[in-house]
């Protein structure tokens, strides 16, 4: 069985992205709790902050892809419907990614 078909790749992606999301969420919650507007904005206005912010949302979208893909594969048996849903999911996640990118670009 190929590396991809074994599901090991998805398994690893899901775990790596999970750790990134867990750490990123704690930082964002800390920002919201502090109530400090300029700090958050200054953080993502720097190249490093922007990269970390992008990494966080990239991890969220990758994690969503693996999870929702698994659910579609589990419950939708009809081929046409399955592929249509997977394509719709991919487009939706790409749209969200573009949105995050625009937010970042505007704040830089």
């Amino acid at each position: 069985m190929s590396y991809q078909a074994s599901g090991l790749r998805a398994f690893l992606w899901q775990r790596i992205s999970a750790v990134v999301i867990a750490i990123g969420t704690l930082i964002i919650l800390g920002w919201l709790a502090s109530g400090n507007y300029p700090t958050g904005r200054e953080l993502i206005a720097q190249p490093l902050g922007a990269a970390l912010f992008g990494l966080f949302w990239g991890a969220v979208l990758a994690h969503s892809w693996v999870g929702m893909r698994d659910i579609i594969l589990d419950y939708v048996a009809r081929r046409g419907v399955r592929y249509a849903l997977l394509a719709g999911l991919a487009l939706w996640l790409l749209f969200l990614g573009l949105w995050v990118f625009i937010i970042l670009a505007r704040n830089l």
Partner: protein
Amino acid sequence: MKRPTHLNLFTIHLPVVGWASIAHRLAGVMLFLITPFLIYGLETALYSPENFLQIKNSFSTFPGRAILIFTCWAFTHHFLAGLRHLFFDLDIGFSAPFYRWSAILVLAGGVFISLGVGIIL
């Protein structure tokens, strides 16, 4: 082949481990559905200090508080259940009776932490 199709949710009795597992998936779907609203909230909060306060204050309204608690539950449960899986990957807690205790801990943790956040905030 005829399979048994007894799917009445009120008569199916899942073990507690099963509840933790299906809730993990359910919470994941909830988070997926909430994602665009989170991005929108973050975008608004970053826009200006007034907008930041507007988002912050919206958590004090009734619908805002309710959404916050549900989102918090989905995240906390998903987080704890995922952490449990990461421990399993390291071969920790994957035997009786620990896998059962940890499932109960995950279920209870999600409920108590989200209610706690709802009360404190």
